[in-house]
């Protein structure tokens, strides 16, 4: 980071509340470069598709075997042979391609996807991801493609609320839930702040509706600020 280069935008966005779910999705969409190949995880990350501008040239991958997936199917468009990884009926865009599961996961594991966006139970400041299993004794473990996605894409974005409903931080020094992948997350987009995570720890890129110092106190985590102040 070079503080003498062009000035960074303000880190704190105050005078507003935390981001809504849609605003989080829009925030993630802004960081997806033109022409990227992207996988959006099941659940909240699928909202990102609604915020990719027309002409962004982003090609969506669904791991059950399709590139250039279109929006969810409406009544009358539903084809039981055309679903996404969440088993929701979807549509195909011109230029779509279909392939089998081994090819689909090979393109993921082989580093051909630019970005995947995943939900999470917890992310550690080193970029460890926990999003598949609570570890509860009576829980039935079910992993799906989460582990393949976590280690496969060139960049892994997590989109989640920063705190549980009970107010417990989900960005943590060490994950206490079983891991999905080790050191695999690059960025964490939350309602209260956006973070860069990795071997250098967690860096706050921006906050929403909360001053940096309050955020640091609520997280109880070693943090740095992107603006270096």
């Amino acid at each position, binding site marked *: 980071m070079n503080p003498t280069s062009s000035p960074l935008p303000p880190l704190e966005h105050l005078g507003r509340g935390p981001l809504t779910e849609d605003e989080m999705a829009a925030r993630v969409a802004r960081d997806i470069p033109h022409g990227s190949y992207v996988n959006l995880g099941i659940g909240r990350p699928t909202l990102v598709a609604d915020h990719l501008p027309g002409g962004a040239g982003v090609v969506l991958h669904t791991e059950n075997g399709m590139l250039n997936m279109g929006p969810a199917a409406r009544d009358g468009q539903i084809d*039981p042979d055309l679903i996404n990884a969440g*088993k929701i009926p979807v549509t195909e865009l011109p230029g779509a391609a279909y*392939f*089998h599961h*081994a090819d689909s996961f090979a393109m993921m*594991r082989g580093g051909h996807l630019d970005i995947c966006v995943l939900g999470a139970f917890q992310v550690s400041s080193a970029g460890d991801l926990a999003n598949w299993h609570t570890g509860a004794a009576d829980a039935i473990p079910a992993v799906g493609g989460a582990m393949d996605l976590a280690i496969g894409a060139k960049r892994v974005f997590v989109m989640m609320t920063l705190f549980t409903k009970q107010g417990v931080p989900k960005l943590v020094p060490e994950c206490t839930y079983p891991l999905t992948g080790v050191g695999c997350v690059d960025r964490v987009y939350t309602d209260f702040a956006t973070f860069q995570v990795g071997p250098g720890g967690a860096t706050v890129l921006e906050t929403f509706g909360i001053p940096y110092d309050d955020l640091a106190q609520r997280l109880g985590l070693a943090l740095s600020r992107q603006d270096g102040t």
Partner: protein
Amino acid sequence: MSVRACRDPDEAVAGIEDGSTILVGGFGMAGMPADLIEALIRQGATELTVVSNNAGNGDTGLAALLDKGRVRRIVCSFPRQSDSWVFDRLYHEGRIDLEVVPQGTLAERLRAAGAGIGAFYSPTGAGTLLAEGKETREIAGRTHVLEYPIKGDVALIGAHRADGMGNLVYRKTARNFGPVMATAATTVVAQVHEIVDIGALDPEAVVTPGIYVDRVVQVVSAA
């Protein structure tokens, strides 16, 4: 040996033995060989190991096979779903063994079985519960996990069309596990919407060459 066109799903699943490992295609209901599973329930084979992405939905198909107590063990990536109550009950009652495999690793282990690969190293799952007890190796600075092939005695898959050679084409995302499972089992049975004459499928568009396919059966319901 050439492909046999069966007159109905019961003929297509005849001879499946107790204790077999059955690969079951489909992701959700797309590509699910529902008629073959119903025929397998009637056929009666038991003590089965089932390899499939999910562990049954609702009360029909794979869920019905489970409900009849025919499945001793299931290998899948995502057993728990909103409508997987049959599996959930058997699991909590300790009446079924579960091996959870990451979805891409499941596909690749099937591919390896079909391709004659002894085992492979994959970065997926390294450092997680699903790698516990498995050999690992550092390759190019990254931890990889040793994974073994999954071979079936029988594969039951759904495809769109077959020709008289057993060549298969699929439709949209219903392709999913069909092509890899077709390579990975001793006996491969495909239910299709239509069986066409030899020469009627574009050879450039064939996804599963007939060499892999042993029996085909045309069904009227959605695959």
